[in-house]
Structure formats: structure tokens, C-alpha cells
């Protein structure tokens, strides 16, 4: 039932502007692939190419092994959920959902039973006779989902389907989508701006930038082992702290000396980051420390690779479950995520502890992970 998708050296230009610049990608049947990337990087365009809503400039799109470059959307066996839902405003919820089956001349009773099944599943069975204008955002979203699901296509495409919902509903719908995917096992390609969504839904995440795919891997790998500065900086909120500095060796140990740091702090690379190759003395690097790996000294269970340092706190931002402490090293704003009970006062010096076992190291020039 689920089909794989292959993109072969896919390119797309609008007039003179290249938007998709040669993408190769193989999506296994049943996978849940999430596309992330900054605004305008070409995510929607890529989805449209797969859907057949835009023609490819060069390269191939294969769905279930079949080249569909010239196949119109309706014959690709796909369904799509749009950011703005794109419900048919003049049709009732029922008619919205059955429209795809009508056009395919599915028998009436088969339509009815499919409708009933998914309306129940999505808890919209009491809304079937309303028009989209009479629905709340979350309800619309579910109708859009229902419209896509009911046709039981081989591939689902989602273009930021949750971005118009409020936080609570978003979390709910996210869980729904995850459950549905697990139940139906269809191939899904999903575009989102929301990193939590990406991390929790995806079997693999593709990080796009400017028409290219930077990294295509499972969520843990993306988060733990970003291939470059772009991916590292893109995932995580607040984003990974980046400290420009220089390597130096002492006593068989590699350290990072932050640039222009008056504080004379040196971060020991005693974790995996220190095991890489080419860690030559004096090399310009970027040290990446995620906010949650910096915490109040003594606040967490003792572990290996811990490194203590002190710095004056600039801003204290309690967010509820956590408190963010903004401090500076080498004139660079850094953020630490500490527990609400680790009280700090702006201006006062604070003792931080950092788990260097989770530090990342990037080449300052190329931005590639070392």
C-alpha cells in the first residue's frame, strides 16, 4: 500500500531563479520524513514537485518505482494537506471529504463507510453538515486531514499543516498524526517550521537550505550529530551556543580557547568531540554547546566530562519548567538552561557546569563538523 519516493537530481527553476538545486533522496515505503529549513528554502516547492503541482525542470520524481514526471496530480496516488487547509468553502464538511472519492467515482456506499470511519477517528462526525466557515481552526485542520486520509493513497504530503493552530491544539494534533501514521503505515512527507514537531514525528528529518538538503537522518542523529553549523544552529530552541575559538593541546588533552575571552576559560574536549581527526594546534573552530548541557554547578548528577566555569549572569529568564540564564564569554551571548530553583541574580557571578561529553566541534571556515 505505501510507496517509496525517489528523487533523482531534482531541479526546479522559476524563470531565472533556481529554487531546487539538485536533490537526491530516497524515502522508504512507510517512512515519515519531515522537511525543515528556513523560510524560502524550497520546502513547499519540493512538496509540490512530488505532488505534481509544479513541473520538474530536470531530474526525476519516482513514486512506487514509477517515474511520475508527466503524471498529473490526480494519478499519482497521493493526498496532500495544505497549510491553509484549502477546504472548499462552499461545500459541507461531508462534501469536502468525499470530493476526492466522487471525482474517482467510488461507489456511494464505499464513500459513506470510508467517511464514517475517518469522521469517527478524527472526531468530526458531528460536524459533517457544517460549512468550513463555521468551524474552528482545529476542526478545519481535522477536516483537511480527513479529506486526505479518506482516499487511502500510497503517499501523504503535509505542508505545515499545524502552523495555524494554537499551542495546545497543536500538541494534540501532533499526537493524532503520529498515531495515524503508526496505524496506517503510509509514507508521509511533512513540512514544518516547528522543531518539536520535526523531532517527535519524523522517522527521518531532511534539513534543507537554499535548495539543497544539508542532512537527511533520523532525529537523534540530526540533534546529536549535526553535519555542519547550519544544521546545528537550526535545530534546538534556544539554539546551540556557538563559541568561536582556537584549539590547543596540553598534556595530551585538547582544549578550546574562546576567542578574545578575557576570562581565560578553556574548554577541555575530553568527550567524543576530542576524538576527531585533524585537531591540530591553533586550528580555528566553533565549539557548540547546547543550552541544556550547561547548568548550575552541582545541579545534576555527577558524570564524566564535566567542566566547571564561572561567569557573570546578564539576564535571568524564567520560563516555568526551566530558567534561561544569559551570560557572556568572549563578548558572545550564551544561554544556559537551569532549573527554576537555581536562582541567580543579574550581574552576579554564577558557577556553571557544562557536560563536555555533548560538546560539538566545527571547522570555523567550512562549518563542517569535525
Amino acid at each position, binding site marked *: 500500500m505505501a510507496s517509496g519516493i525517489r528523487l533523482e537530481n531534482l531541479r526546479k527553476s522559476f524563470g531565472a531563479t533556481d529554487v531546487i538545486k539538485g536533490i537526491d533522496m530516497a524515502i522508504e515505503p512507510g517512512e515519515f520524513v519531515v522537511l525543515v529549513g528556513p523560510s524560502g528554502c524550497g520546502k513547499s516547492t519540493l512538496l509540490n514537485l512530488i*505532488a505534481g503541482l509544479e513541473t520538474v525542470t530536470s531530474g526525476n520524481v519516482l513514486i512506487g518505482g514509477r517515474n511520475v514526471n508527466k503524471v498529473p*496530480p*490526480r494519478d499519482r496516488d497521493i493526498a496532500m494537506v495544505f*497549510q*491553509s487547509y484549502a477546504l*472548499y468553502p462552499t461545500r459541507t464538511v461531508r462534501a469536502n471529504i468525499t*470530493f*476526492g472519492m466522487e*471525482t474517482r467515482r467510488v461507489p456511494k456506499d464505499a464513500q459513506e463507510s470510508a467517511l464514517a470511519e475517518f469522521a469517527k477517528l478524527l472526531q468530526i462526525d458531528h460536524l459533517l453538515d457544517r460549512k468550513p466557515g463555521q468551524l474552528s481552526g482545529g476542526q478545519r485542520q481535522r477536516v483537511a486531514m480527513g*479529506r486526505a486520509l479518506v482516499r487511502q493513497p500510497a503517499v501523504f504530503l503535509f505542508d505545515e499543516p499545524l502552523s495555524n493552530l494554537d499551542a495546545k491544539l497543536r500538541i494534540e494534533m501532533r499526537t493524532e498524526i503520529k498515531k495515524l501514521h503508526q496505524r496506517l503505515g503510509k509514507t508521509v512527507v511533512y513540512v514544518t517550521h516547528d522543531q518539536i514537531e520535526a523531532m517527535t514525528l519524523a522517522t527521518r528529518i531532511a534539513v534543507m537550505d537554499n535548495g539543497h538538503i544539508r542532512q537527511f537522518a533520523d532525529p537523534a542523529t540530526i540533534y546529536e550529530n549535526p553535519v555542519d553549523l547550519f544544521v546545528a544552529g537550526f535545530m534546538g530552541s534556544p539554539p546551540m551556543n556557538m563559541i568561536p575559538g582556537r584549539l590547543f593541546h596540553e598534556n595530551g588533552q585538547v582544549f578550546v580557547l574562546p576567542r578574545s575571552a578575557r576570562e581565560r576559560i578553556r574548554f577541555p574536549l575530553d568527550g567524543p568531540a576530542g576524538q576527531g581527526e585533524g585537531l591540530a594546534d591553533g586550528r580555528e573552530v566553533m565549539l557548540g554547546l547546547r543550552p541544556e548541557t550547561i547548568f548550575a554547578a552541582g545541579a545534576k548528577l555527577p558524570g564524566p566530562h564535566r567542566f566547571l566555569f564561572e561567569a557573570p549572569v546578564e539576564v535571568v529568564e524564567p520560563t516555568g519548567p526551566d530558567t534561561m540564564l544569559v551570560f557572556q564569554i568572549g563578548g558572545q551571548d550564551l544561554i544556559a538552561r537551569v532549573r527554576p530553583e537555581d536562582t541567580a541574580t543579574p550581574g552576579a557571578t554564577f558557577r556553571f557546569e557544562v557536560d563536555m561529553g555533548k560538546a560539538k566541534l566545527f571547522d570555523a571556515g567550512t562549518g563542517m563538523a569535525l
Partner: protein
Amino acid sequence: MRARRTDGIVRPSGPGAIALRVLLFTLLGLFCLYYLFPLFVMVSTSLKSLAEIREGSFLALPRAISFEAWAKAWGSACVGVRCDGLQPYFVNSVMMAVPAVLLSTLLGALNGYALTKWRFRGADIIFALMLFGAFIPFQVVLLPMARTLGELGLAGTVPGLILVHTVYGLAFTTLFFRNFFIGVSDGIVNAAKVDGAGFFGIFFRIVLPMSLPAIVVTVIWQFTQIWNDFLFGVSFTVGDSNPVTVALNNVVNTSTGVKEYNVDMAAAIIAGLPTLLVYVVAGAYFVRGLSAGAIKG
């Protein structure tokens, strides 16, 4: 008209504000008088007897209301040798205007839809070239059009007139619908494509039902234009198939005999009644439709 969210803004109060408000309503009222004045003259004249018209001032209200002029204009005024009033010609106009309005609206919608939602190479040029048709003075096309109708065997027939109105209405209807469809999200069309609908399926089942505001504006505009047309009607129809404007002209523009002003006015109102009615009934939708995108802005 949608409620404005700016209506609640706290305004200065006090005598100055009240004076302004009074001024506002005075102005609005004065303009109402300006616009209603001719209609008033028409209606009150049509309800007077000829004798009263001759004696009194045209501003005076009728002393005794009489519907005789109306009855005559509708059923027994002479148009040439026929003395059946405007009634038969009124029917002609309906037979002509209804299909022409529907046809030109439908084709305009189809055109606008194809040009905006299925953009193909040259769509803009095609649109620009078609739009020019809206601005061509009709006297210019009279003779070649007559010739063409003759060649088509449609000379002097109602279908011929329908063709003429449809052709020259197309530019405006396309313009209205195109401007409306530009504002309609492509997402809906894309969704329908993915849902398996084709060009016509999307048009008839999704897009057309959505375009009610544009349809209202277009139908009103086209209906007014076509119903009120005189030039094409007089040139391309024969005697009994004349539209009501031609008949009205025959009643009003006579050069002999006593001028029956009351009948003239009654006839004029009767001939204008359908369009008036359309504006009164659908006027609100007209402005709403205009703001829904039938104009640029």
C-alpha cells in the same frame, strides 16, 4: 457590508461633535435629494393627468393620483402601428438579456479561471488583448458586425443580438472574474487537483460556487449594460423583436401630436424597472462584491 472593527473607536463628544454629526446627515440628505430628484419628477409626472402637467409646476405633487399613464404605457401606447404598449418588447428584452447575461458571465468566469488558475505562457498577453474590447466605442463596430451577423444568418434575430452582447461583454466579465480569482487561494485549486478533479470539475464544483460575489457584480453590470443597450438593439433587430429600449424610444421620441409626458415617464420607468430592481435588491451585494476583489485594491 461587513461590520468594521473600527466602528468602536471612541470619538470626541460634546457640542462640536454633535454639530459635525448634524452637518454630516444634512449633507447626506442633500445628496439624497440630488439623486432622487429626477426619479421624483418621473414618478410624480407619471401619476399626473396631462392637464395637470400642463398647468402645474413639475415640482408639484400630483393632486389626484392616476395610474392611467402606466396602464397605457404598459398595454396600449402605440409603437408604430402596434398599440400594445411596451409589454411585448419588454418580453423581448427579457428573452435577450437573460441568455446574454448568463452566457457572457459564464464564459467570463471560465476565461478568468483559466487565465489565473491555470496560468500558461501568454496568458497575460491574451488577457490584455481581450480587455481592450471593453473600451472600443460600439459605433465603430456597427457595420462590420452587421455584415458578420448577415453572413452568419443571424441578422435581425434575437440570437444575433445575444451573440453581440456576449462578445462585447466578454472583456468586462473576464476582467471582473480575473481580478476576483487572483485573490482566491491557489491552495484550493491545488487541493482539488490532488483530489482528482480536472479543469472543468474544479471550475464547476469548486471555483464557480465560490465566486458568488464576483458573479453578483458581473451579473449586475452585464444586466444593466445589456438591458439598457439601444444602439445594438436598434441596429440588429427587426420590428417585433425590438428590445424595450427601442420601443421606449419610439414612444418617447415622437415628433407629431400631443406629447403625453405622463405616458413617456411611465414608459421610461417601466423600461428601467428591472435594472432598478436589481440595484435595489442586490446593491448591497454589489458593493460587497466590489470589495471582494472585483476591483483592484
